[in-house]
């Protein structure tokens, strides 16, 4: 780890000001950033911790019935507090990493990082969530811009994520054996006006919606409807020592069908 300054502002405005400095880096739960620093793969001038911003914490329900999660809410809290209103989301949060990760890692950090194998981007995209920042609201469909890339501007902070609650939903991941991140994860969300399916772990472009499955499931919400589909094209899927692109494409269909079967 290289030397850096550390700040822990207590207001959003102070945090934004601190992040305006050259090579400043926001620190949420640090579950990706701290290992990156330890491996000497990043050298920020200062770390701006968001942990003292009370307005970024907590799980609530808004007037539209959406489950709204403050950006620095750890996964363990989401797993506990969203369980009644949005069980599929709570179940996803409860299966990220291990207890240490779940008590430090945050939803805002996960979405801002947009790791192509992370779980939360699938939930946000499949749920048609609204990602709220310090100065705007970004629909999930517009937020994810490819592997480790998002619509966030330099110094922009996610403050809250608002999840419409589907009629039925489920997330199932097939774990990469070493990291236990998603080798392929499928999030299925059935709304009154249609079904959304988001896939994480598989694509070189990061999280994506599997539209063929969405169309089929909107007509017939059953595992058989997915099994009748061809797997998505292997072209553009990640291929590495944990699995070829063909294997990942195959798993997209398998995990989507299983997620549909498990949806509640």
């Amino acid at each position: 780890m290289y030397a850096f300054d550390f700040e822990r502002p207590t207001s959003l405005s102070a945090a934004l000001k601190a992040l305006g400095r050259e090579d400043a880096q926001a620190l949420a739960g640090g579950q990706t950033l701290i290992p990156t620093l330890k491996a000497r793969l990043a050298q920020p001038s200062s770390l701006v911790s968001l942990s003292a911003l009370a307005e970024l914490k907590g799980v609530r329900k808004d007037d539209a019935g959406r489950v709204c999660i403050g950006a620095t809410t750890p996964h363990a809290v989401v797993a506990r507090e969203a369980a009644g209103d949005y069980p599929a989301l709570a179940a996803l949060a409860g299966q990220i990493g291990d207890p240490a990760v779940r008590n430090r890692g945050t939803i805002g950090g996960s979405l801002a990082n947009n790791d192509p194998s992370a779980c939360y981007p699938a939930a946000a995209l499949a749920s048609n969530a609204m990602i709220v920042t310090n100065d705007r609201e970004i629909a999930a469909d517009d937020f994810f811009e490819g592997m480790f890339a998002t619509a966030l501007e330099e110094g922009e902070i996610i403050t809250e994520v608002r999840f419409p609650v589907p009629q039925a939903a489920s997330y199932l991941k097939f774990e990469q054996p070493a990291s236990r991140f998603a080798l392929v994860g499928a999030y299925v969300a059935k709304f009154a006006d249609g079904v959304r399916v988001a896939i994480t772990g598989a694509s070189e472009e990061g999280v994506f919606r599997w539209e063929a499955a969405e169309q089929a499931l909107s007509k017939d919400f059953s595992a058989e409807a997915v099994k009748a589909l061809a797997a998505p094209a292997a072209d553009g899927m990640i291929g590495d020592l944990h699995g070829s692109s063909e294997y990942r494409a195959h798993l997209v269909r398998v995990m989507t069908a299983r997620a549909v079967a498990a949806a509640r």
Partner: protein
Amino acid sequence: MPKDFGIGANSKRREDVRFLTGDGRYTDDINLHGQAHVAFVRSEVAHGRLKGVDSSAAEKMPGILRVFTAADLSGVGGLPCGWQVTDRHGNPMLEPKHPVLAEDKVRYVGEAIAAVVAETEAQARDAADTVIPDIEALPAVVDMKGAVAEGAPLVHDDIGSNLCYDWGFVEDNKAAVDEAFATADHVTSLDLVNNRMIPNAMEPRVAVGDYSRATGDSTLYTTSQNPHVIRLLMGAFVLGIPEHKLRVVAPDVGGGFGSKIFHYAEEAFCTFAAKALNRPVKWTCTRSESFVTDAHGRDHVTRIELALDKEGHFKAIRTDTYANMGAYLSTFAPSVPTWLHGTLMAGNYKTPLIYVNVKAVFTNTVPVDAYRGAGRPEATYQLERVIDKAAREMGMDPVALRRKNFITEFPYATPVAVQYDTGDYIATMDKLEEIADLAGFEARRAESAKKGLLRGLGVNCYIEACGIAPSNLVGQLGARAGLYESATVRVNATGGVVVMTGAHSHGQGHETSFAQVIADMIGIPEDQVDVVHGDTANTPMGMGTYGSRSIAVGGSAMVRAAGKVIDKARKIAAHLMEASPEDIELKDGKFTVAGTDKSVAWGDVTLAAYVPHNYPLEDIEPGLEETSFYDPANFTYPAGAYACEVEVDPETGKVTLCSFAAADDFGNIINPMIVDGQVHGGIAQGVGQALLEGAAYDASGQLLNASYMDYAMPRADDLPSYVVDHSCQTPCTHNPLGVKGCGEAGAIGSPPAVVNAVVDALQRGGHTDVTHIDMPLTPSRVWAAMQG
């Protein structure tokens, strides 16, 4: 009923109190006054010409004491190799220099090029990042068969070949073996890979060098399985320090698995630099460094052929193996694919003719050396896989085929030089059938099928050779060391006992089990016995712990030394009771004159030895302390039978281990609970190799899975609860305890069980074209195999 103390008791591991409460003293816990820290600059390319090192920026950074390169190590020798193999043609193996810091070339990613010593660890690391090696990259040699092909780039230009040796065993058998294959009723052949393992001991390596200008004494604190061996190798061959001026201390060590047997460059550097700078110098390996600097294990590519007659009797075995040495010869690397591998190729079976060929190859990868089992897992894996394949081809039950070929009479001289002294392979297989409920498999398979899962059963046997010996034999085979073990048994005046052993405990529980033996011999409570190990200053010269040798060899030395102590104490007791020594019996801590009620307590005798007022000074010396060096007559041969059941998800290829049963014959057992633990850990390691682990290099020599994000270690939820049984006991015939050793068995016996089970599951599930899948059996590999 287990006893409540002594041999056979489940005594709780006394060392765990300090390990579990954070009171262990590991090498990294040692901080010396005035200590400096070193960070190594390591090669990021696998192969290249090293034209220079620019350390000018580093030298100006805060806290820097000195930057060392190879040019600063004049008078320092290369790291020695402890075993010289002779090839098929009678020539010695090629043995290139293994420098402490890279000289003219870099030969693997991770090789140390420069050492930056600073006041603090952070200063050393920051400065090391600014050191720029000038490297002209060369094509890397990674694939073994490619390495020995015509025109391949040379890892070591001066030795003229990447082929370290071409070994044939037994060369005189070759023609007869070929003839047996030519005339066999059936031949089964199998190509397989024994995947490269990264040891991943929980505690990374650490070295602290110290030097006293006043006395001229050097001390090295290091994470080692064998401090005396390090003292000899480093002192005599690398730094030129005689033993009496060099002390090596290996305190609590957090796991070794072989990787801490070897003498590493960092140890030599810290010892050297402490003298050069007249300050203690410390190095703590990061986990990232350990992936690319700890010697790796296994990495064989093999074709094995088995010739059988119509009835399924084994007639001959022929193997052709490429064994990766990596870029340099690590300390015992050449012995692993030869004498620890070829000699075990008979397994548990009567096969009259065997020929083993091994080509050891240099590549631009991390050096490869012994790793839990070392050669024996490689032998067991190929043999037990090809037997399973043969059974399938011949339409025979794999257990019945094994039983038909079991060795049943002992001693048994194999055609590969070793002689098994004892064993009962039918008994362990019978026991396995019982504890694994093999008869109930079909019903369990039907249950799995209802869930849409393919269930498979894998069974195999193993034999291993522990306590490699005797020294005069291993000397003929190329060992440059003896393989005895030592112990001093010191009895204090008030009756307590201290055992100073040359063996080293880094997880095995010697402090408990060795004490149990002494307590049993004398009849005193175990807490009256302490075991000291790991410091050349207070233990007799010994060879350390590896190859499951500690109780069989070190324990035997201890028993011999204790026997001498007891003989002397008996004479003292005889004197005190005015009886003849022949009539004195020692039982329950009391010397008794046979047939009388006259007795004297152990503590009274030991007090007399040190306060010799009423004492036969004309016949014996005062004091009660004896040393023994024990050189075994033969290896010991633990053996057993393992069974594993798996479920394979046909949609994803994911393998779930449903059950694992192990029936082992370890001879006599000192502490059944510790033996259980050793087998449990070994199976976890073997399952890791079978399902999860495996170093992956790309064609340029970069290690692709150099962190836990990509290198999968087994975790608790990957494993079922094991059924472990060691009630089949054929005691070793040639050591005083009748013990055989248990540390490696689990890692040796388990990989073929797992792979046999997965192949069985696929076969039963209709994938009859799948006869083999190379380890690790990851979901993607199993799925790919099912796709045809």
